[in-house]
């Protein structure tokens, strides 16, 4: 029996582009305990709400994170709209839903690429990111930005999409579906990939509930939790879908859930494009927020919570975000216990960590 040693993992390391630091207490090759320490990306963004006009703060809210930027912008807008009792026009709700689901596809493809990279499958990493570029092209054509769109504003959206554009998005997604199937089959059917992922980092259903996991991490452990099911602010009430759930709770299950969600999002966009109503794309916004409001949104990584408190001036008193990665870090710590050192990079990636969301 060897002594325990502590191996620092991060903050600068080649697995993730983001800095996260984990102290791994090791006994030989087994991890006994993992102690995460964060703070490398803390900017103090919530405090900035006291200095910025609440309408202009949307730009800052979008930059909480570059990957789920649309979701953050939408979440903040929803919270302020709730506090000011603004009725968002139905067309804006549909357009927001379409962009949000496109973001989900882009985020999950990004994750699949990082996952392939973490297990040393370079080709699959490149293929996933090649597909992701096609989604970014759609973003660039419809919003003007590849990563950060600034298309969501308080009361609605800034840009409309014409019928032709909407149909071309669906056509392109339909073309993509076949290509996507080839990539995702590689994840789900290739024996080496399966051997690498199945049974690694198992999180039981009880653990997932106890640790308050959210999003694909919780759904892969058999917890049926998807904010879109009870979402009234988006167009989700009019669209039919089933949450993607797996029961195994290992890396492979988390991969399966995210792959199923890729195709689910394509289906949701298809339905939304069929049903999108005509009309205004933004409501008139008058006055300043006086009340407080709390809202929840299903982001690619899971449920995010937004809280705003107004005071009648154009500066808010408080804005608070609880991001999905923040809720999933305890699950990561639990999954790391007892795993092999060589599996650590893959397990860190498997919860889809977004450090800049977590620390803001």
């Amino acid at each position, binding site marked *: 029996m060897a002594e325990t040693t502590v191996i620092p993992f991060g903050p*600068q390391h080649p697995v993730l*582009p983001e800095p996260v630091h984990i102290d791994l207490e090791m006994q030989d090759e087994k991890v006994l305990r993992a102690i995460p320490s964060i703070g490398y*990306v*803390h900017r*103090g963004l919530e405090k*900035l709400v006291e200095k910025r006009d609440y309408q202009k703060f949307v730009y800052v809210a979008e930059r909480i994170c570059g990957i789920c*930027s649309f979701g953050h912008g939408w979440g903040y807008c929803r919270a302020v709209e709730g506090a000011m009792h603004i009725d968002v026009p139905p067309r804006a709700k549909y357009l927001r839903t379409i962009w949000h689901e496109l973001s989900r596809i882009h985020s999950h493809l990004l994750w699949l690429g990082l996952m392939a990279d973490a297990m040393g499958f370079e080709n699959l990493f490149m293929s996933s990111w090649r597909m992701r570029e096609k989604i970014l092209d759609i973003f660039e054509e419809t919003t003007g930005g590849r990563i950060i769109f600034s298309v969501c504003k308080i009361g609605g959206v800034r840009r409309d999409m014409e019928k032709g554009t909407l149909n071309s998005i669906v056509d392109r997604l339909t073309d993509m579906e076949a290509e996507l199937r080839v990539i995702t089959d590689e994840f789900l059917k290739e024996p080496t990939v399966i051997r690498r992922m199945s049974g690694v980092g198992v999180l039981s259903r009880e653990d997932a509930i106890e640790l308050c996991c959210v999003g694909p991490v919780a759904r892969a452990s058999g917890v049926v939790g998807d904010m879109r099911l009870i979402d009234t602010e988006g167009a989700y009430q009019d669209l039919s879908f089933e949450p993607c759930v797996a029961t195994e709770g290992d890396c492979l299950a988390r991969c399966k859930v995210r792959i199923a969600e890729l195709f689910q999002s394509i289906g949701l966009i298809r339905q939304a494009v069929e049903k999108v109503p005509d009309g205004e794309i933004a409501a008139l916004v008058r006055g300043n927020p006086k009340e407080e409001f709390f809202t929840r949104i299903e982001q690619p990584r899971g449920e995010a919570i937004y809280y705003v408190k107004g005071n009648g001036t154009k500066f808010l008193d408080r804005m608070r975000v609880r991001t999905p990665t923040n809720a999933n870090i305890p699950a990561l710590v639990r999954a790391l216990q007892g795993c092999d050192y060589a599996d650590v990079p893959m397990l860190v990636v498997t919860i889809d960590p977004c450090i*800049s969301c977590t620390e803001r």
Partner: protein
Amino acid sequence: MKSFEKKSPWILHYDATSCNGCDIEVLASLTPRYDIERFGMVNTGNPKHADVFLITGSVNAQSLPVVRRLYSQMLEPKVVVAVGICANSGGVFRDCYNVLGGVDKAIPVDVYVPGCAARPESIIDGVERALDILEKKAKMLHDGRLQELQEMDKLPPMPDFSAKKEAVV
């Protein structure tokens, strides 16, 4: 394109308090659409291997020592490319209490790449410009002007956050 014939630059990328936007664009420039590997650029995790330090974000109190340590570990000749508006001047986070506002306050910067998020094309362009500077520095090293070079790449004094923090309290 000519400048890529000069050297195959190895790149060290560090996210110093960025929102991820620029980081995924740095990664995107490695992937098939942009594929900077055909110019011989390789993303490395080891500062001693790297020629170019790509740095994103506005640098906070905790990442400041990491940035300075990584920079001092890199061997001469070295160039620093600040990617994105946060790395250039702080961007939207300029007024936040915990950010330095610009990488150039922490380490010497050679090339500034604008944009929020910086597009892969501009990142590649920025690295290309950095290569010209790298060549000049390599020539200095070749001529035995190491001391002059070290003087050029000297770390600025450690920035102080206390004034910004006091303003908050």
